[in-house]
């Protein structure tokens, strides 16, 4: 049985109609010891079947170690959403529930290469000097989480120095413990800056610039 119901398939098809550049969904999976890897891969294959501009490439996390290193993927299940270039957008854990919107949003955005950020934000992001890594911890039942995930995606589209991960909290308890995630969305930037809740563009940018300034 398909994971997506007929209505959702129809919606996805409609949303992917106007894609510009080809989008490649690079999936890292593993046959054993990964409860959601199979489902994650199936989800992406179903999405790809709904648009001729979306393709799926599957790698094994263990045997394709070089590919995992190339994409900077350090845990599974993982998805890299790649457009004309790798914009640094990753999903760790199956993007179901409310995060399904973030996945479709990411596909649309990497295909267009357009972030939709304000001219002021774009200008500020040009002044970044150091790599910025944004991790957004979510649960799939959190209606406020996609706001934070999608804001991080926009920032990554706009700057080659930014990469961003959606991390589905319940699938990675060691990270929940490490970053003390007790409320979502929780955003961790470069291991130094942490905040909760989805913030507006200007405030999110402020934290990115602050993280960049703290790099020695």
């Amino acid at each position, binding site marked *: 049985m398909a*994971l*997506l119901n007929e209505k*959702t398939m129809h*919606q*996805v098809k*409609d*949303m992917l109609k106007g894609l510009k550049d080809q989008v490649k969904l690079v999936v890292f999976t593993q046959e054993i010891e990964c409860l959601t890897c199979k*489902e994650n891969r199936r*989800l992406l294959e179903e999405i790809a079947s709904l648009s001729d501009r979306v393709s799926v490439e599957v790698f094994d996390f263990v045997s394709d170690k070089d590919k995992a290193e190339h994409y900077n993927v350090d845990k599974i299940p993982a998805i890299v959403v790649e457009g004309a270039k790798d914009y640094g957008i990753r999903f760790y854990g*199956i993007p*179901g*529930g*409310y995060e*399904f*919107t973030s996945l*479709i949003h990411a596909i649309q955005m990497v295909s267009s290469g357009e972030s939709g950020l304000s001219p002021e934000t774009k200008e500020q992001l040009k002044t970044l000097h150091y790599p910025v890594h944004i991790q957004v911890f979510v*649960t*799939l*039942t*959190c*209606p*406020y*989480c996609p*706001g934070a995930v999608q804001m991080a995606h926009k920032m990554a589209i706009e700057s080659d120095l930014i990469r961003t991960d959606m991390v589905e*909290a*319940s699938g990675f*308890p060691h990270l*929940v413990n490490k970053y*003390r*995630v*007790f*409320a*979502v969305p*929780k955003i961790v930037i470069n291991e130094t800056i942490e905040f*909760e809740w989805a913030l*507006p563009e200007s405030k999110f940018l402020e934290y990115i610039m602050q993280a960049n300034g703290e790099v020695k």
Partner: protein
Amino acid sequence: MEFILPEKVEKVPVEDKKLYDFIIIGAGPAGMTAAVYAARKKLDILVISKDVGGQPLLTSGIENYMGYQYVTGPELMRKFEEQVKQFPVALLIDEKASNLTTDDKGFIVSTTTDKKFKSRSVIIASGKRPRPLNVPGEKELVGRGVSYCATCDAPLFGEMDVAVIGGGNSALTAVIDLLKYAGRIYLIEVMPTLTADLTLIERAKKSDKVEFYPGHLVKEIRGTDRVENIVISSKDGGEDKTLSVSGVLVEIGLIPNSEFAKGLVKLNHLQEIAVDCECKTSVEGIFAAGDVTNVPEKQIIVAAGEGAKAALSTYNYLLQKKNEGIS
């Protein structure tokens, strides 16, 4: 597993130079119902809201919205959204109203990002937000184990002992959500009896994970960089009790989002907007509906009904003004 997508929007541009017939502040059950009623009257309206769905987005199960034997809050709100988006309604989402003032043509609604919109009339349907406990340690430990969104954060408390504070439907729903994840669950309620629906209480009582503390209040939440324990005391006296918990989920009711209208419309002692049976506030041209008002019983079905009434009252008001030749 569900895969949720927003309804397709035929975007109606949001125009800051325009004088709208009315602006609806909030897109929960009251705001969205008002929008549908207004759209059917072909009125030119703008909806300003921080989200689409409001409080029901955080409600896991609804068994008392007529027409549905069981529906989740987000699912019901998607149905509402679908219905609103059938009509050409301008929606400004991810924005919060920060101020409401009058001018010679009607009203000006300002938002937190300094945008300003004008209209002949306004419907306030901005709902409520979680009420804090106001005990020592709470503020410092928000996001460190203190949570006001059980639906969002319940999966983070896997195998951990947690306390749920409150005895109403939201608290009992939080307990039921947590049964899948948490270790021990302590339910602490200040009243001697729980006020939640019996069906929810029965479901929670079926689990031996849940320990009930009616007639107890929380005195303090303790922890250095995360919640470690809470101190509770019985209202009948006796010694304080310390419970080791990693999470405190606060579900003790809500406070109205009425600050932006304070000083303009009359509020009651709970800071709710006072309305009459036609949803009129103390200011001519400003109407209000749903949980932000003093209308008793904060229920989705009541809010939706009030939203319909507010839109029709606003329509009559605009018609009357037009007939008077003022607008």
